[in-house]
Structures are given as structure tokens and as C-alpha cells.
């Protein structure tokens, strides 16, 4: 117990100790912001992987570590699409995942927002044109927010999510 406390005291607060993200290239549209209005103080998102290389997943996991600590902004990760306000989709949508993606979208209660995370989800990235890819995500479900990058840095994801939930009109 003493050891644990000592370790925590020695470590101190690490939250926010990361390089500042570059300004967003593609800020959320006012439409998306309007849709995100009900989720301003609390947003539960469900991650859906439709064929990413898993780098985007790793960066999303990093959002939950003490350095980024996304929960301090009221954003948490839901265990089921039925508990989610937003879907975060990664990957170029493979033929095998196409139906699962549509099902997840159907099972997420309205109102909902869909966030395409990473270049693959936005434009299929390197996998564009492959026989096994039917994406991008937008071909199958409507998208509200795009966070480009291969993969986007956690700080960039954080900025995009904060931007989306900023009080506007």
C-alpha cells in the first residue's frame, strides 16, 4: 500500500503532458455540431473496426491513458452500440465487415453521430480498389465528422472531438 502511494505521489499528474496538436485541417461542419448538441457534456462512443491496420485502434486506446484521459471531458467508450451516442469507424470497410457495420448503425439509437477516424475510413487509404474492400464508410452509412491521418495522433482526435462539442449556434 505504502509502495503504491509512494509511486503515485512520485509520478504526480501527467494529464495533458503531450505535444499540442496541429490545427485541424478539416473542422467539423456546423451541421455536425448541431447534431452533437445533445452530447455536449456527455458523449458515449462505440468503436467499430471495419478493417483497419489497428494503428487507429491503438491511438484510440491511448486516449484513455492518463496522459490524454478522455473521460475528463465526459467522453467515454460504450460497450455496446445500443448504449452509444456516436460510432467511431476505422478501416476501409471490408466485404466481410460490410454487413456488421450496417447492423451496428441500425442498432445505435437516434440521434447519433458517425465519426470516420483515419484515412482508410475516409477514402480507403492504401486499400482503395481492392476486391476485398467495399468502402469507404460513407458508401454504407452517413458520416458527420472526419478525422484524417494515418493514423491521427491522439491529440488530434481529442482536438476534433472537443471542437465538435464546442458551444456554437
Amino acid at each position: 500500500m505504502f509502495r503504491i502511494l509512494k509511486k503515485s505521489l512520485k509520478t504526480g499528474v501527467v494529464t495533458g503532458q503531450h505535444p499540442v496538436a496541429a490545427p485541424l485541417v478539416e473542422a467539423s461542419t456546423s451541421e455536425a455540431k448541431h447534431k452533437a448538441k445533445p452530447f455536449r457534456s456527455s458523449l458515449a462512443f462505440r468503436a467499430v473496426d471495419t478493417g483497419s491496420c489497428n494503428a487507429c485502434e491503438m491511438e484510440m486506446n491511448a486516449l484513455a491513458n492518463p496522459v490524454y484521459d478522455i473521460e475528463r471531458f465526459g467522453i467515454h467508450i460504450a460497450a455496446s452500440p445500443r448504449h452509444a451516442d456516436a460510432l467511431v469507424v476505422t478501416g476501409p470497410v471490408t466485404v466481410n465487415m460490410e454487413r456488421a457495420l450496417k447492423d451496428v448503425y441500425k442498432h445505435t439509437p437516434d440521434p447519433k453521430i458517425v465519426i470516420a477516424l483515419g484515412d482508410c475510413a475516409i477514402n480507403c487509404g492504401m486499400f482503395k480498389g481492392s476486391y476485398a474492400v467495399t468502402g469507404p464508410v460513407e458508401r454504407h452509412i452517413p458520416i458527420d465528422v472526419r478525422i484524417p491521418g494515418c493514423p491521427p495522433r491522439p491529440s488530434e482526435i481529442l482536438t476534433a472531438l472537443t471542437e465538435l462539442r464546442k458551444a456554437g449556434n
Partner: protein
Amino acid sequence: MAETRFYDEELKAAFPLIVQDEAAKGEFSHFLVPKDLLPAITHHLHTQPSLHGRLTLLWAVDNRPIRDTYGLHYLFTLESSHHWVVLSAELAGDDRLFPSITPHVHAAKWYEREIRDMFGLIPQGHPDLRRLIRHEHWPKGAHPLKKDFPWDRVLGRQQGEHHFRHIEGEGVFEVPVGPIHAGIIESGHFRFSVAGEPIMQLELHHFWKHRGVEKLFEQQELIAAVALAERVSGDTTVGHSLAYCQAVEALLHLNVPRRGRYLRSLFLELERLHNHLGDVGAICNDTAYALPHAHCGRMKEQIMQLNDRLTGSRFLRGVNRVGGVTVDLTGVQLAEIVAELDRIEKDFSELETIIGSNASLIDRLETAGVLTERTAWDHAVVGVVGRASGLDQDLRRDRPFAAYDELRVRVVTYRYGDVRARMRVRMDEIHESMRLVREVSVKIPQGPVAVEPSRRPKAGEWTLSTVEGWRGEIVYMVMAGENGNIHRCKVRDPSFVNWPAIQWAVLGNIIPDFPLINKSFSLSYAGNDL
């Protein structure tokens, strides 16, 4: 080399009908084999105590347009000498059948189903001919790696349902999990059969994320496909790109300068470090012990930020290129790496004490998900999982690449094969990686970091390359095509051989322990599904 010849001669004496291909003498022994002899020879290689061959890769090639044949190739690593033996057979004309070796070499099971799906060649005598990569909704006759299948064809859809193996009886029920999971995890399906709490059977249904990577390689030029290799499995960016680059360098007869090779080792160890740190934390987190997870997440983040500062990518993307590396590090940067790792090592050692003295955690990890040495060997399991089950193998020591011929790696093995052993392997390897990075920073020579490619390989030349990534052995087979393009690139992530083994490791455990066991294996879905 004399020892090598001894194996060759023995094999030729036992099977007079096989022909040795003398051209490949240097890197591996290559034999041309009539296809009917395959089961007998592979059985001999696998079981003969003096050979002790482990199936490392099994791949097929559509040789059109060069020759109107399909090639089947079997790569065995002889565990006693770490020597490679490649057996090659050809199917000519309309012949689409080849004898399955799965009844003799269990590890061939998924490879042969893969070949059937991708090439339409049928392994006769295979005990399980269900579809593996082509899910049941794929139209009949779609075999993407055949040369007459266009890479960008739009697949149709047919009706079909995957048939799981069922256990029937009173009180037995099935628990389906996935493809979309509760956490931020990749997509895959698990089907448990349970009676009460203990798992009686687990069946994997993967390949949801199949993106057609191997076909996409064939659309690219040899020197340009590094970026695709980096995206086979994002968390193993350096491992995959290094294995790919090494293969192409062998085809182009390039010698990477020593400084370049040292930097490759350095980046590979940095990748190992951030992944191992993350996994140790995640294993603890799966027992609901959040404190180490928080600390490990913080340390992992420090290393990823270090990567970003050094190379501009948190995943070290764009670091490897054919001929060397794209980034050179200054003395100041090397000192920064060493200082940062010294801090993290001290930090991590304190955390290790905390983890090790938590009795309830250790109680949960011990005897959970035991993979016995025998089962591990039968599945030809590699990497961290293999070393935790007592398989003493590490390519950095056994078949040195990059700068490992000059850096001595101490290989960590544990015997018990449970979750704790797999965590212990990772913890010890974290220290070993830090030691290696320090050694690199002392020994690294001055000089250029890359050479320019000049030669263009003949169509049909092929080579093999392996790298010990943080998960384990990554294997690439690259065959050159016309005009510096790729004819065939076979990618094998360690996950592909380790996934089937998990089905045995979970037996008798309770379902709530499955996430823990799965995390201790820490396998890639993307690298498996390709």
C-alpha cells in the same frame, strides 16, 4: 555448412526421388519434390529427432504468365541447427489437387485452407475443408490470388452460413462473441461451447478484416511497397517493413551499411518496448487491476512521443526503406533515447515490484490459459507465446538480421505456459530491449545509413526473409515479376500461427478468463486476416 550438407544428404538418401536445387545452397536447402511424396517427406522432417523441423511457412504461387503451373512451397526450420529447408512441388496443367500434409504436420492446417481459398487448389485428405478467408457469402469460384482474378473485381454476394462445430448435450450452450467487441478491439468472432462455467470448446471465426493485402502487393513495384508492408499490422510497423525491405534487398543484392543496420535494430527494439509495456498494463487491467494499466499506459505514451520526436511518426512509419533507413540519429538524439529509457526502466522496475507483490493478481494469472510445450510445438507457435511455453527460439539470436550478429540477445524463456509466464516474458524482454538500445548507442558506427538500389531482379526470382518482431517471427516471401514489379508476396504475421493455439489454451478455463488469456497472447487480427 558441413553440418548442412549432412542434413541434405540424409534427406536425399531417405527419398531418392527428390532433386536438390543447387542454386539456393547459401541461404537454405531447396528440394524439388514430386507432389505425392510431400506427406512422407514433411512427416520425416517434422518427426525425425535429428531434424526436428518446424513448419515455418507454406505458400502457393500462381506461376502464370511465366509458366503455366502452380507452385507449392514448404519452409521448415530445423530446430537443432536453425537451418532452413524448402520443399517445392508443382501442379501442372489442369491439376488442382495436392495431398494434404495436415494429418502429419498439424501446423499446416490453416495454411492449406488458405491456399484452397486463395488459389482454388484442393488439399486432399485435409480434415477440415470449410472456408477460412472467403466467408460463406463470397461467390463460388472466387479465388483472388489466381492471376486471372482482377485485383479490383467487385465481389458478388451469395447466401451462405458458416457451420460451427457443435457440442450437444444437456446443459451445453454456445456463447457467440463478436465480430464487434465491447472494448476497442479489432474485429473477430469467437464461439464458445460451455457447460456451466468451464469452456469445453472454442472455435475461432476470423478473417473479417481481410483487405486483400497480398493481391495489393502484386500491383506494386518492389521498392515502393514498403508503405503497404507497414500497414499490414499497424502495431508492428517496423517489424513488417523491415522483413519486407530485407527480402527486396536480397533480391536486389543490396548490402545495407552497418549504421543503417544498427538503426534498424534500434527502431525494432523501440517498437518492442512500447508494445510490451502496453501489454503488461493491459493484462493487469483485464483482471480489473487498473493501477499498473495507468502506469504502463503512461510509459508507453512516453516511448511513442519519443518515437514522434525522433522520426515524426508515433509508429515509426516511413523509417525503413529498401537499402537502409530514411532517418539518421545524431549523438544528441541517441543520448536522449538512452536517458529516456533509463528513466522508464527505473520507473518500470518500481512498478514490477508492485505487480509482483500483489498476491490476488498473481493468483489470477497463474495456471490461467496454460499452453503446454507439446501443444505449442504442434502448432509451431512462435514468439512471446512460444517462449512462455518453453520453446527456446528467437530469430535475433538464431538467424541474426539487422545488427543482431553484433549484438548478443539474451533469450527469455519460461516453462509454465500460463498467463503469468507470458507476462513475465514481456517484462524480462522490456529490460533486455533497453539493454540492447544502450548497447546500440555505444557500438553504433559512423557512416551512411542507406544505399541506392541499382539492379533489377529477373522475373521469377524469389527470396525469404524473417524478422523477430515484438510478437514473434514475421516471415516474408517476395517473388519478383516483370519490370521490377512484385509477382507474389506472401506475408505471415506471427498471429496467423498463434491464433489456432489459443483454442487449446482456453480449454477448461472459465469465460471471464478468456479476455485475460486473449490479451496475454496479444495477437493481431489485421496481420492474421491480411
